[in-house]
């Protein structure tokens, strides 16, 4: 069913719905100032750790990103990337890829639900017990209307699946209206992308069998809101797999998906919160914990040596920052999958004790199967979390042994203390760069898919101010990546700060200056900043990624 939809999308009659390819190509052919991709500061010495670091575009070309990935590097690259991913999926087609038995359970469930349709109360109360944090707001209440951004997920039958605020039951008629809008436009062989009215943007993303809708009053562009919705879609896939999702709705179109997603609302809520304050999502990249390259290299080697046959990825992280990542040769992780893993870990305190072993789908790697993830903190009261991703769900004890070996090696080679010390300074101060008027910056190396950024300091003290700064970066980013009119250089003068954006084929740089600086000073400061990043790159990035 999904495949049909993709095929149909290939020749959407209304050309204006599809981003124009020509524009993409134009941008990629523009001359690269200074640095070629792969030589910019932060570029890994032995190739990238991620599938393709420029994949912001494949998210924003909202029409069928899975069928035709559009990458500024050109269509050929996109094709080869696509086949690479297909190969990967083929290689892994034999892994133990699903929660066997769910299908059977489902049939049973459906039979039951036919028998007792009114029996909704236990489930509802069950959800309440799991969900203590969620506000109990009625749709009619003002507070509900005041939220900056609403996110809704519904099935094609118009059934509520998720709402960020308020209860889904109370919103079922609202969601019905949304589905009606989507279907009404589809009848005319068209697709609704967004509605702009009264300061609101209503953005629709259709991923059969789900429909995702955001109602936002933020400064984000339609593209960026659509990207966030896609993250939510991938988040749902990571819990269920696309295969299972499709099968469920093929068997019963009006299935209540909340039943299978029960208890996962906190993960989705957390993802939305994280996207509002962590630039990783905007950048489509991962941030590394700054540490001496010598220490990081030894840690990576220890991690690489603690291997097992079934291990595909081993990731050491501390509070959403990457410490080390080891991958199986020829297998690449997509940054979206990595972000979903980061979000999973940060959304639950249940990993703090014991060793967790859970099925997880990495939707950009292979949306049809589950990996088994071993998740544990190295020590209960540190923030170092080890994530071991295995293809064999029966292999817990082997994988658990890898963790033990890794810890032993760390201690034997005497880097454990240094690692703990690095945790004390997860951010560096922008004053280290030594540029007056420089307040903050974000630098992304495109080839490594990694970015670096100093601590957000005064005057951005309050959460509101921090979000405002990120909002400004979002604005610059959306201007730079506008699919119909991309920009390479932007200088933005505001009343509270001046910002500069510089996007090339090799890197992206967003810099925030105090409002007193001049444009000329900003331009020369950028060159100084680039030199500083180059000097510090072995501390700020992972330059020598390891493979099994």
């Amino acid at each position, binding site marked *: 069913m999904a495949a049909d939809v993709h095929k149909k999308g290939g020749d959407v009659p209304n050309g204006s719905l599809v981003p124009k390819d020509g524009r993409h190509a134009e941008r990629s052919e523009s001359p690269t100032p200074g640095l070629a991709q792969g030589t910019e500061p932060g570029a890994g010495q032995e190739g990238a750790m991620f599938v393709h670091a420029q994949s912001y575009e494949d998210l924003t070309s909202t029409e069928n990103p899975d069928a035709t990935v559009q990458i500024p590097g050109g269509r050929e690259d996109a094709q080869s990337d696509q086949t690479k991913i297909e190969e990967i999926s083929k290689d892994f087609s034999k892994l133990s890829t699903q*929660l066997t038995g769910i299908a059977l359970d489902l049939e049973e469930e459906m039979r039951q639900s036919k028998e007792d349709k009114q029996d909704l109360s236990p489930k509802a109360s069950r959800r309440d017990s799991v969900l203590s944090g969620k506000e109990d707001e009625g749709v009619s209440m003002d507070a509900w209307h005041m939220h900056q951004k609403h996110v809704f997920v519904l099935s094609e039958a118009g059934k509520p699946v998720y709402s960020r605020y308020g209860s889904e039951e109370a919103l079922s008629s609202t969601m019905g209206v949304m589905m009606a809008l989507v279907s009404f436009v589809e009848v005319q062989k068209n697709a609704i992308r967004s509605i702009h009215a009264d300061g609101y943007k209503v953005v629709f993303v259709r991923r059969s069998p789900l429909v995702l809708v955001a109602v936002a009053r933020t400064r984000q562009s339609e593209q960026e809101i659509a990207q966030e919705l896609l993250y939510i879609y991938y988040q749902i896939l990571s819990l269920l797999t696309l295969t299972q999702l499709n099968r469920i709705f093929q068997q019963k179109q009006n299935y209540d998906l909340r039943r299978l997603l*029960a*208890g996962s609302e906190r993960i989705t809520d957390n993802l939305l919160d994280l996207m509002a304050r962590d630039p990783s999502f905007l950048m489509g990249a991962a941030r590394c914990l700054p540490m001496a390259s010598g220490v990081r290299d030894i840690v990576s080697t220890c991690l690489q040596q603690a291997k097992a046959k079934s291990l595909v990825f081993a990731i050491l992280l501390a509070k959403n920052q990457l410490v080390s990542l080891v991958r199986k040769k020829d297998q690449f992780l997509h940054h979206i999958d990595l972000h979903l893993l980061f979000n999973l870990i940060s959304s639950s305190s249940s990993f703090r004790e014991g060793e967790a072993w859970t099925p997880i789908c990495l939707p950009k790697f292979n949306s049809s199967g589950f990996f088994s993830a071993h998740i544990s903190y190295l020590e209960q009261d540190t923030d170092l979390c080890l994530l071991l991703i295995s293809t064999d769900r029966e292999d817990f004890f082997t994988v658990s042994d890898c963790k033990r070996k890794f810890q032993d090696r760390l201690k034997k080679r005497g880097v454990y203390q240094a690692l703990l010390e690095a945790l004390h300074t997860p951010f560096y101060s922008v004053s280290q760069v030594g540029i007056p008027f420089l307040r903050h910056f974000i630098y992304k190396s495109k080839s490594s898919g990694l970015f670096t950024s100093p601590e957000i300091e005064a005057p951005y003290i309050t959460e509101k101010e921090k979000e405002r700064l990120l909002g400004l970066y979002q604005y610059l980013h959306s201007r730079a990546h506008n699919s119909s009119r991309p920009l390479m250089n932007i200088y933005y003068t505001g009343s509270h700060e001046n910002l500069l954006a510089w996007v090339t084929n090799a890197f992206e740089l967003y810099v925030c200056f105090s409002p007193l600086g001049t444009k000329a000073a900003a331009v020369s400061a950028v060159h100084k900043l680039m030199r500083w990043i180059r000097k510090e790159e072995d501390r700020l990035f992972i330059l020598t990624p390891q493979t099994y």
Partner: protein
Amino acid sequence: MALRELKVCLLGDTGVGKSSIVWRFVEDSFDPNINPTIGASFMTKTVQYQNELHKFLIWDTAGQERFRALAPMYYRGSAAAIIVYDITKEETFSTLKNWVKELRQHGPPNIVVAIAGNKCDLNDAREVMEKDAKDYADSIHAVFVETSAKNAININELFIEISRRIPSTDTNPSTSGKGFKLRRQPSATKRSCC
């Protein structure tokens, strides 16, 4: 002193307090704002029982619907299963009965079943009578205790009772191997995803 490894898994509805029971037993701590378990969580604890050391290998499973199908991976090969319900929620007791049924049909033949009625500190909100639960447990020859992970009531006793019920090493050598395979029994029908 001889060391025996005892594999125990916890089953039951979401939110009944499986993880809290394990935390109380292993760490002697309690977190009222504990997050739901994702997948399953593995912990161990060694205690002395008579002249033996019993090392409990505990699989704390997630109670949520989407992890339901994973349970056989954990109860197969277990020496004991602790099925937990919440005394303040009638429907969690019905779920418990389903678990007993499933264990009967698909679990290992000699598995020791223990029933724990958790949250017994919330007596005011009680929905499941202690006597009803006790009668049911007796009818299936299961261990029965009402527990409170919050107030540390009957938690250690629960595990001691399991130690007592599990047949001694000599008569049952199959459970004493090092570690245990999560592997499904080969007889299980294979289902593929696509």
